């Protein structure tokens, strides 16, 4: 049953490679971009890359647990973005900028 299904499906390597590329793009964006909004979006990319891995392995192993986890991750990510945007808005009110290079007051 499972083998027949697997044969019909897209091979898992494709999913994993796609997720890896997506993660790399996100990581590149987090490191290079100076606009905090883009950085936040890149973090979302990396999160979603991880979600794709979850889904892929879930389908591959026929275990629904991975999908349950992804739903959870999405909701947490939504909350996280909301918090992130809220911080960003407040930071913008104070500093009149969203450049990461200028928002460096959280240090020693």
């Amino acid at each position: 049953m499972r083998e027949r299904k697997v044969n019909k499906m897209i091979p898992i390597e494709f999913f994993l490679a796609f997720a890896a590329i997506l993660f790399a793009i996100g990581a590149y964006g987090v490191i290079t971009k100076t606009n905090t909004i883009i950085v936040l979006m890149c973090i979302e990319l990396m999160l979603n890359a991880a979600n794709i891995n979850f889904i892929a392995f879930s389908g591959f192993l026929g275990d629904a647990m991975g999908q349950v986890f992804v739903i959870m991750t999405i909701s947490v990510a939504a909350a996280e973005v909301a918090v992130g945007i809220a911080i960003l808005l407040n930071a913008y009110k104070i500093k009149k900028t969203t450049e990461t290079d200028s928002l460096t007051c959280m240090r020693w």
Partner: protein
Amino acid sequence: MFIEYTWLVPLIPALCFVLVGFFGNKMGKTGGGYLAIAGVAVSCLLSVLISYEFFTSAAYASPGYYTESMTWFTFPGGFEITIGFYVDTLACLMMMFASFISMLIFVYSLGYMGEEGKRKRRYFAEVALFVTGMLGLAISSSFIEMFIFWEIMGLCSYLLIGFWSFNHPEGDDKADNAASAAKKAFLVTRLGDVSLMGGLFVMLYAFGSLDYTVVFDAANIASVDHNLIIIACLLIFGGVIGKSAQFPLLDWLPDAMAGPTTVSALIHAATMVKAGVYLVARCFPIFCEASSVMLLVAVIGGVTMFFAATMAMNNMNIKKVLAYSTLSQLGYMFLALGAGGYMIAIGIETGDTALIAAGSLGYTAGCLHMVNHAFFKALLFLCSGSVIHSTGTEDMREMGGLGPKMKVTSITMLIGSLSIAGFPFFAGFFSKDLIIEQALHAADYGTAGWIFIVLWALAIITAFMTAFYMFRMWYMTFRGPEGPKTQHCHGESPKSMTVPLMVLSIFAFGFGFVLLFGFDGLLSINVDLATGQFFVGGGHAEGLEYLVEFFTNPWTYLTIVLVIAAIIIAKFMYDKRKINPGKFNKNGTSWLYRALASRWWFPELYNQVSWKLGYGVARGVDYVDRNIVDGAVNGLSNAVVGSGDILSKAQTGNVRNYAAVVLGGIVVLFVVILALFYFMGGL
């Protein structure tokens, strides 16, 4: 019946100390004074009952003491420290006279310290603790317990000498500053205490115990290395020198006059300096192991006796004269104990029973002089306190002619002066003449006998000087023309001060007569030659025999004549003013006068030693502390702070950098794990 409760004797004043110390200000105007008096009076009553019970009990005849103790704690090595009490005739004598005299001094303090206000609470609490120390010392059953009470007294003397801290009425030099006098007393006695502690360690090593019953047991003494006992004795005597202010460490006692006069009376009569004499008397069984140790005791005593008396000759401060006379009288006590012990030691070596009995009289003389001195010195100090209270000065040149204005004080002080001078039939006469007789007697024995001839001569000269300076003081204060402060004096002191004076003067006159009623039988020490065990008793005379002995001895007449001559000279110099004392010292410029006025340069010597030696050591220690100890600590902290500063540069605050580091870290970790798997044998 009472003897089982001997531990209450020091405990009651200790309780008074706690109660007065905490609640004294709520106890009315005296600041707890009545409670302190009541406490010490109960102690006094209890000691009398205990002594009566002890002397009538079977324990008095054998083994000569009554002791109870319990284990306090045990060391892993098997040493046991016990705490308990040890009652023998010496302890009975000590607790009776210490508590009795302290009680009188406390009563006197009600008047003398009457204007101290809230500070009375502190005063009465501290003196109660002081008396606790002395009574505890008298009844302690082991050396360690004795040492604890010894140190309590050291602490109290510090606190009480410094009672007025920096505020002291006119003095003749800077050391009169009470705070520095207190510090000096504490540090100088501490030097002796270190020595005493060393002695206790040697004893613990030698005997494996510090209990009196163990240490004074003849079988134990015989089984221990003789040299260890001698070392222990010398070290213990070092402690005695510090506490009783003997020859090299004598200079703290005159400075201690900066405290209230009642405290001086306590220190000189009832507590503190008597502890040293008590310790030597207590340690007789081990001190008598070597005649050389006893010789040292006698020589130190003799030297102190003489030098202290010379310093009293030209002092103008009424309290300082008394302080030097205390040193001098303590010297007499040590001379008596040393001479007696010397004869006992030689008697043990040669097996001469008669010589031991003769030496035993030295012990009796020393202890009798200790008690007599307690009575007349307490009396003299309290009288001087009464004079100071009335005139507001301590300088005798400003007094003079006080006799008619202060009748009770002048008469009681006259009795005290006659007693200390050794005028016939006063208390001091009996003990002092016994001591002089002992010194001469000891000269006949042993190879070092000639030293006792010298000491005997010094003792006779000192007896002359004692009579002279005491009457110089008395005439300068109470006779002659009226001084500037006499005209404004307040007259006689209140009843609370004069009544103790009258009580004490009875004892200062009459206590010597106990010698005629078997005192030496109660308070003498004897040796059983077969076993070497020391025991109490064996006094050799009773009834009028002592009087016969005194007045058939030609040397007694020499002393009496010298004493009377000294009194007459003092009268002509300071009362009639027929002889100008300035004639003998070129009006205070002669070499001898200056030597005496600067106390034979003892304070100078102390300062030089402490500056040159102490300051050098202190500077070395300071250098090590600043540069090596502090250097290590500072270097460590600098290294930590510096590296922290450098590493904190990595914190840019820019999230991109942090993300890059995290990512780089993950990559590195990943590569490392891969490499590990690769080299360990594939995935």
